[in-house]
């Protein structure tokens, strides 16, 4: 069982916009420490001169005609919104 000294759970959770309980932080730090320990073996691979692959079969420069097409009606687009009013999504106040 290992913890990774570099893995600052508070910092990473902040980046991920994820509130974690103290119990979750302790558990994840340990479990992810194990996973990161396993992952360390990748450092042994010689990757000098190797190009990274973002996809197995990269498709580049995919263009579509610049023409308007029908989209979702407003009612349907907002159907899953947690809170709405007058065809707009309601959120907590963002400007004081």
């Amino acid at each position, binding site marked *: 069982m290992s913890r990774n000294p570099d893995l600052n759970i508070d*910092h990473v959770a902040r980046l991920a916009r994820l509130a974690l309980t103290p119990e979750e932080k302790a558990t994840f730090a340990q479990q992810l420490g194990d996973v990161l320990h396993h992952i360390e073996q990748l450092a042994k691979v010689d990757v000098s001169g190797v190009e990274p692959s973002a996809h197995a079969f990269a498709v580049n420069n995919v263009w579509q005609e610049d023409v308007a097409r029908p989209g979702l009606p407003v009612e349907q687009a907002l159907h*899953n919104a*947690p809170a709405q009013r007058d065809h707009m999504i309601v959120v907590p106040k963002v400007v004081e």
Partner: protein
Amino acid sequence: MAGLFYQTIARLSADLAAKKLSAVELTQAVIARAKAVEPRIRAFNSFDESDALAQAAESDARRAAGRSRGSLEGIPIGLKDVIAVQNQPLTASSRMLANFVSPYDATVTTRLKAAGAILFGRLNCDEFAMGSSTENSAFHPTANPWDVTRVPGGSSGGSAAALAAGEAIATLGSDTGGSIRQPAAFCGVVGLKPTYGLVSRYGLIAFASSLDQIGPFARTVGDAAVLLGAIAGHDERDSTSYRVEIPDYAAALEGRRGPWKLGIPKEYFGAGLDPEIGAAVERAIDFYRGLGCEVREVSLPHTQYCLDTYYIIATAEASSNLARYDGIRYGHRASGAKDVVDLYFQSRAEGFGAEVKRRIILGTYVLSSGYYDAYYLRAQKVRTLIRRDFLAAYQQVDALITPTSPIPAFKLGEKSDPLAMYLCDVYTIGVNLAGLPGISVPCGFTAAGLPIGLQLIGQPFQEAQLLAIAHAYEREHEWSQRHPALASSG
């Protein structure tokens, strides 16, 4: 003869065409079966009985009017609950999307409808397709029909279990690291992960975009071929979709009987492989030798790095893809947040389960400043090496044979450690990293009666050949005609 709900698409299509059977009768039989076994299996998150029967009545009307649509006319097909169907729930088995109703159809959904299929049910899975047992579903676990104390595999566990239990005639799942092939192996059915880019991902809830592919679960290789033919092909709504000619996969099955050159990657037969599974796969290899196939050992030297490469790339992409769930436009919104930023933190904390949070944290970490080069960029380079291994092997052979999973279905609750769960995927993730097609075909049972899966890995976009190789095995074996004991008691 087994019940209607255990027949193949091929057989049912013939009976429907000959008017020996109506789509309504068939759909009623599948619904009745689902109602009988669901208390034990729990493969579905939900199903809409009246909607399915209405679709079936329309199918019968089309047929009566001589306007049958296509290869799946009147066939009930279940979809994993990460594939969008307009006006049906789409939950990803997550509290985050517990009340989400899809406003549109995925491209595969549109294509299944165009082929005449009856779409029935939302199938359980690991939350956001993250897991290997379906125990990460926020709603309930699914049981393996062969032994209800065991998992069906995952993440597409509901798709595999429903089919094995006779609750669907065929199903679709998604496969990011083995999520179609491993549950197919655990539940004794056929599961195909197509080449990356062959099937549109439009309308599939994104987990790891460079690895995700939708594919079929079916009783036979022939049925899988019919389904693949219905869903494959270029789609302008998915910019990673490939422009390739789609052959008649079902016709290709009988076209060529080999002999093929088959490779045995030695790295897939090492420590950790269950001896009963190893023996079953060896028997399958002997079968191919008997067909006149040349079988030779090959090496995929970077195999030992697949798991680590996968967990860096998949979690990095997941952390990015799941950033959209912020409680604002759709999905779960926490109450009582003190401001809009706090709303993001609290909604995500409440909406996501433990495995999803773990992967978001890991993915955010490997992408974060100071670690990107060491983890993410390095993993992308190792992916190149993994891919080269496979392409080099295909200089010598047509396809590769491996076990699908190192172990048979394990007990519910047995693997509580995340790393132990990740290790279940060792034989399937290389295929996703290299973007290749892979199929799991039943190849026997353990002494305890659990199904064993044989994995065949093909060359990019050579699904017709891969299916033909799988079919050559299946047609001489009777594994796919066995059904769980549940059949007689249900």
